[in-house]
């Protein structure tokens, strides 16, 4: 492509770290946009990005989270498009970004399918993934879309839908157009985008990938949400019982598994996408629990 520089936005910091890693490896200049609220709560990943040689630009506009980081990255890209490639971090943005990101993320589903067939000798009954922009979920689901495997996407319920402080676009939003994409959007009656809240930076976003909106309308995927409280409880439980500390984003998917499993036959198989590890969240969770590390 002849480009010498890459930029990306990041919420939880995972995509920023991934982009910075790739840039370091290939010798490309790299700048990452991240909301100032997220810079604070994902300090570990910010440090990682800097170690990898990326410049991290704090975005202190709007809600100071993922949406505003995408706005700034798009503004940068508009300005520097001749020599910069925008490595979009989720299945969102103007076409063909949602397809590009889905296709790259689809390795998750391909790998999951191979593993489950090897281990269990059959297809799973249900897939569960958290949905912020929705890239990890789309990556898992894509491989199974043509099958009859049930799929559940879990949004951030924040402090509950009634509170208005959440990022549950399907439960609390309506159709709108943001950042070049038509999808479900948290907005007021005049079309201004509403502020969002989630304990997890990666799910704290006012809209959702358009293909998710399509699957919601077609009924292929069931979308639900987990609150901050449920996600934190799942974070604790998975850590204690399985020895895996999940990312707070992924903990939303675990929370749904905790709700669904008791209602299902013991022989059924659920695949939960642990899309991120929780190291990055340990400090943030400690702070929420009032523990000074």
């Amino acid at each position, binding site marked *: 492509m002849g480009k010498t520089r890459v930029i990306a936005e990041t919420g939880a910091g995972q995509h920023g770290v991934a982009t910075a890693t790739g840039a370091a490896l290939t010798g490309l200049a790299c700048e990452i946009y991240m909301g100032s609220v997220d810079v604070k709560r994902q300090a570990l990943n910010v440090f990682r990005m800097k170690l990898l040689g990326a410049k991290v630009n704090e975005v202190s506009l709007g809600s100071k989270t993922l949406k505003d980081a995408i*706005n700034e990255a798009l*503004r940068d890209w*508009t300005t520097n498009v*001749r020599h910069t490639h925008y490595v979009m971090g989720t299945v969102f943005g103007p076409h063909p970004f949602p397809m590009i990101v889905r296709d790259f993320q689809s390795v998750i589903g391909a790998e999951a399918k191979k593993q489950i067939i090897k281990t269990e000798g059959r297809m799973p009954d249900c897939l569960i993934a958290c949905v912020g922009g929705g890239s990890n979920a789309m990556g898992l689901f894509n491989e199974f879309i043509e099958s009859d495997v049930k799929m559940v996407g879990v949004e951030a319920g924040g402090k509950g839908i009634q509170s208005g402080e959440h990022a549950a676009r399907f439960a609390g939003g309506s159709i709108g*157009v*943001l950042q070049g994409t038509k999808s479900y959007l948290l907005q007021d009656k005049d*079309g*201004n985008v509403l502020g969002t809240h989630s304990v997890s930076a990666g799910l704290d976003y006012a809209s959702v990938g358009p293909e998710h909106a399509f699957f919601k309308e077609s009924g292929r995927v069931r979308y639900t949400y987990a609150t901050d409280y449920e996600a934190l409880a799942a974070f604790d439980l998975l850590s204690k019982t399985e020895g895996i500390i999940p990312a707070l984003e992924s903990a939303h998917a675990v929370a749904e598994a905790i709700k669904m499993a008791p209602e299902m036959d013991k022989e059924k198989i659920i695949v939960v996408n642990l899309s991120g590890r929780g190291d990055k969240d340990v400090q943030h969770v400690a702070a929420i629990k009032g523990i000074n590390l």
Partner: protein
Amino acid sequence: MKQTRISKTFSKLKASAKKAFIPYIMAGDPDIERTRQYISMLENCGADIIELGVPFSDPLADGPTIQMAAGRAVAGGVTLRKVISFVSEVRATTQIPLILMTYYNPVFKYGEEKFVRDAVDAGVDGVIIPDLPPDEASLLIKESRASGLDTIFLVAPTSNDKRIKKVALASSGFVYYVSMTGITGTKLTLEDSFIEHINKVKQASKNPVAVGFGVSTPDDAKTIAEMADGVIVGSAIVKKLHENPEEAEEFIKKLREAIV
């Protein structure tokens, strides 16, 4: 087709070999009453057409100056609905062509057909929606053509010939040529190919071509006026009105004088 106020203005200017001065202000910054005063001030200073920004929470094409102005207007409760009804009030006292510059989501939420109808009824002459490419605008274009609302689309320095043709064809009133790759309020830096590129746009369009983005000084305005049919100045005026309102009139007069 009946000539709109915008095309009449351009024809009149062309007849006397003049270029259009198109200032932009943010509706509702700092409040609607002040916007009313600013419109009459701009007209007195010799504005030919006025662009009224509609405040939006996520103005992607705008730099910090207009982002903050939008933030102030949104906080003051100014919405697309209010801007339209404001225009209908202002129409009692002025006939200057008024263009709404709005992002797409407020229009989408309002309903495109209803938006066109209400805007035209209120006396709006044209609409610029920077995040709506012509490819996605067939409904808006159809409704606007039927009602006499001009649809002004943007051409970028990176647009190829095919794109230029498409934008020119979708536009009425004038074509908005974005001076450089980037967002509003950036320092003007014209590429060497600027003249060649804008001439391509002029050839492709039966409508006039106005240039905006980065035009912030009388000198910038003068340079642009030599090559375009109209000059759009936004951030610099919005900034002046916010930071040194007492100097605004003088500044705007200087811009006007520079555009010949």
